[in-house]
């Protein structure tokens, strides 16, 4: 018999959204359990947050800049604008006090004034190893431990369990021990992030195999705008393990200057203040400009171009010691040398289709918070807000509800699926090979898309699903930290998520933000200002559109060529 634990609210994920969901649900009096596939506060995308946006309502010009950035550049008009207004209130009133109360120190000067990155969109930093995310999450981690909220780390959630009407819990594999158990919950908050390791180069980390998307899909939830997939352009090419080191194209502390991009001929082809002054995270514009260089034969997606800060005085850039240390560790001088870069798959705009007032998904009992949703690109602040909304809504609902029945049959079927992979065979094939193949398929599909290459990717994914997955064999059948076993489970998640993403891309017949279809090379606000939804019901793929309202900031043009659009 599989062990079954019980809780009011089950939170899956330990980043900005998951931690806040847990804390806020607990504040409302609900019993909370947290399951994290990595280590809470040490895994996932949130620790990569470089700084946090500083929202004020008193400065009207700053506020207009902020809105323009949020809606136009950051979300390509796909954001829920009413959500943006509520999130803005949260950022103004709650976000900073909540974290500062726990002891976070945001940088100040010797007089006690907040030091900020004073670009058009201001932001604050609270550094640990050059990033703000790690310190924010460390404080939340310790608060969660202080309150003794049950926390299951290095535990992979393998499926959501439903009783036919609503989600009733989840199955968990503690991969440190190999113990498989279930958590029965009144409500489940999924917060598994928006940055998955689905392509050969990705900012998503090892444990991020899109389990959240895949489990939600299998539970019947709607997924929207998965194809709006960002890529970093200025990330370190070598060593490979440093593909997550980001050479910031947005202003660093102490300067309004930014890194520049240079093609193989040494010509500068991108700098934020020149090419996208309104954007704080100008990745989509960088991508388009790199695309032109690639097409001109002056760069490759994986190298042949460089980034650097050598136009900035050395003392300024060295003051931002984290960047200088990366250079130094490679034997380079940050004030003189440039580093070869490659693109890395980064944040996904899309995700679960949610009602942003509660973060409820289309499946009862299932909430989604943070970048996993489809309503906003993400970021530490917004994800925290989502966590709060989801945590509070899930807790309030849970307090009025009895524990749902746990479907025993589904539980045993999932146990059979998970343990089915635990077969050793000296000959293989190994799950890692299938995993690498999926990443290669998505890397090959890359940035420039069309009907043909997306169909080809779909077929290639199908081949992995049908030919490789049933034959996967492990090196050992040990249940203890068996990376092969995890790789097999990851591969299944990745296949579901990637297939949904490619299908979603096939449906969108325009280009927008980071999504470029050369067969539809224009932005089409008339037809595609929508949540582009896919779902799988009884094995059948469904799709539909849900219009996005733009009450506060509508786009200026209905239709314009992709490479001319300023967002």
């Amino acid at each position, binding site marked *: 018999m599989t062990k079954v634990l019980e809780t009011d609210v089950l939170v899956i994920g330990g980043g900005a959204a998951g931690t806040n969901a847990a804390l806020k649900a607990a504040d409302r009096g609900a019993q909370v359990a947290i399951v994290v596939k*990595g*280590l809470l506060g*040490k*895994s*996932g995308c949130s*620790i*990569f947050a470089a700084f946090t946006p500083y929202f004020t309502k008193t400065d009207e010009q700053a506020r207009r800049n902020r809105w323009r950035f949020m809606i136009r550049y950051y979300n390509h008009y796909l954001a829920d604008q009413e959500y943006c207004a509520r999130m803005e209130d949260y950022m103004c009133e709650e976000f*900073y*006090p909540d974290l*500062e*109360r*726990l*002891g976070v*120190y*945001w940088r*100040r*000067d*010797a*007089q*006690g004034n*907040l*030091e900020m990155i004073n670009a058009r969109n201001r932001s604050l930093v609270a*550094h*640990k*190893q050059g*990033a703000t*995310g*790690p*310190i924010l999450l460390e*404080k939340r981690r*310790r*608060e969660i*431990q*202080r309150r003794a909220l049950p926390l299951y780390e290095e535990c992979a959630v393998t499926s959501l369990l439903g009783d036919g009407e609503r989600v009733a819990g989840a199955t968990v594999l503690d991969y*440190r021990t*190999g113990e498989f158990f279930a958590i029965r919950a009144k409500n489940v908050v999924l917060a598994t992030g928006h940055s998955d390791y689905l392509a050969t180069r990705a900012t998503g*980390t*090892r444990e991020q195999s899109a389990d959240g998307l895949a489990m939600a899909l299998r539970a019947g939830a709607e997924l929207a705008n998965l194809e709006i997939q960002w890529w970093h352009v200025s990330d370190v090419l*070598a*060593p*490979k*393990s*440093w593909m*997550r*080191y980001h050479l910031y194209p947005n202003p660093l502390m102490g300067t309004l200057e930014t890194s520049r991009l240079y093609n193989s001929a040494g010509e500068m082809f991108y700098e934020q203040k020149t090419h996208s002054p309104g954007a704080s995270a100008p990745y989509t514009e960088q991508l388009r400009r790199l695309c032109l260089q690639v097409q001109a034969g002056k760069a490759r997606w994986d190298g042949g171009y460089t980034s650097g800060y050598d136009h900035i005085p050395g003392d300024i850039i060295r003051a931002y010691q984290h960047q200088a240390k990366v250079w130094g*560790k490679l034997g380079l001088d940050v004030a003189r040398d440039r580093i070869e870069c490659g693109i890395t798959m980064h944040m996904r705009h899309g995700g679960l289709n949610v009602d942003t007032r509660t973060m409820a998904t289309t499946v009862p009992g299932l909430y989604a918070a943070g970048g996993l949703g489809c309503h906003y690109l993400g970021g530490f602040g917004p994800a925290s807000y989502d966590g709060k909304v989801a945590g509070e809504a899930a807790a309030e609902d849970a307090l009025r509800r009895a524990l749902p029945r746990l479907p025993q049959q589904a539980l045993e079927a999932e146990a059979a699926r998970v343990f089915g992979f635990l077969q050793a065979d000296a000959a293989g094939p*190994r799950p*890692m*090979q299938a995993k*690498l193949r999926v990443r290669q398929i998505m890397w090959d599909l890359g940035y420039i898309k069309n009907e043909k290459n997306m169909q080809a990717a779909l077929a290639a994914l199908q081949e992995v699903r049908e030919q490789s997955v049933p034959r996967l064999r*492990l*090196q*050992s059948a*040990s*249940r*203890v*930290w*068996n*990376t*092969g076993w995890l790789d097999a489970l990851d591969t299944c998640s990745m296949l579901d998520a990637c297939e949904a993403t490619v299908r979603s891309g096939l449906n969108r017949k325009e280009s927008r933000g980071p999504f470029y279809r050369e067969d539809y090379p224009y932005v089409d606000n008339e037809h595609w200002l929508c949540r582009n939804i896919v779902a799988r019901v009884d094995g059948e793929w469904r799709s539909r559109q849900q219009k996005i309202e733009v009450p506060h900031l509508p786009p200026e043009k209905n239709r314009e060529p992709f490479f001319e659009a300023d967002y």
Partner: protein
Amino acid sequence: MHLRVYRFDPSVDREPRYESYEVPYQPRMRIMDALDYVHEVLAVDIGYRWLCGSKKCGSCAVNVNGLPKLACWEPVQERMTIEPLSNLPVIRDLVTSRAPYEAALAKISPTLVRRTEYAGFPEPLKSTDVAPTAHLRECIQCLACQSACPVLRTGDTDFAGPALLVALSELAQDPRDGAERAALASDVANVFKCISCYACEPVCPAEIPIVREAIEPLKRMAYRVGSTPGARRAHAFLDTVKQRGYANAAAVAARSGDFGLGALGVALKMRRRGKLKFSDALGGRATPGLEGLRRTYETSEKEDK
């Protein structure tokens, strides 16, 4: 490159073994890239942790040729014997359990205990107020220092170890914190059991001056409240120097109340060789002109309080 990797699966193996792998060198390669190659290309199911790959999460530290290193940060070497961190139980292969560290952390109340109620954002705080903890705040809990600590390596101590002391010291030196950190440092973390060997510092990827900026401030706090042998000894040492102008082993021992029989054998042997005079414990020569020295010391001590 030649890798010798520690393999141990406690659920199957009776004892650890080493497996060797040949890994092609790539420019700028990190230790992590070599492990990834074994896992991905050679498809070997070695257990190892990596989460961020960019020196933020601190999950990937391993011992390489006997020294703890953050795998994602340090370059490869031609021949590497890669083993799990020391002083922590092994889960499998290179993966160690962080549970003992977490349990010890819980004992030092690792959250801010505010002296006064939180005043709202931004609270009054200057960069100078938090300057003493600037380096401590860079700690990513990779536990390399715990692995390098020879006191922990003896396996028979209630010393908390450098990583815990960094965490405690960050809070203890936080002007907002009002918890009894001195008592925690003295009696829970046993800060005076640090042997001042600095073995923790060269292995710290965050380059924290652990002894000077984390441990010694705690020792000073623990000294003020302290009844531990370490605090008593420091007190006796200073007293002796003030009385005589120099330290003397017998006198410091006597003043510390350090008459343990265990040390008697050693003392007798030293006495036989003329290294120790028991009469020094109480009497002994005082340096002429001591008055000035004593005044100078006392002026400085006062300035610190």
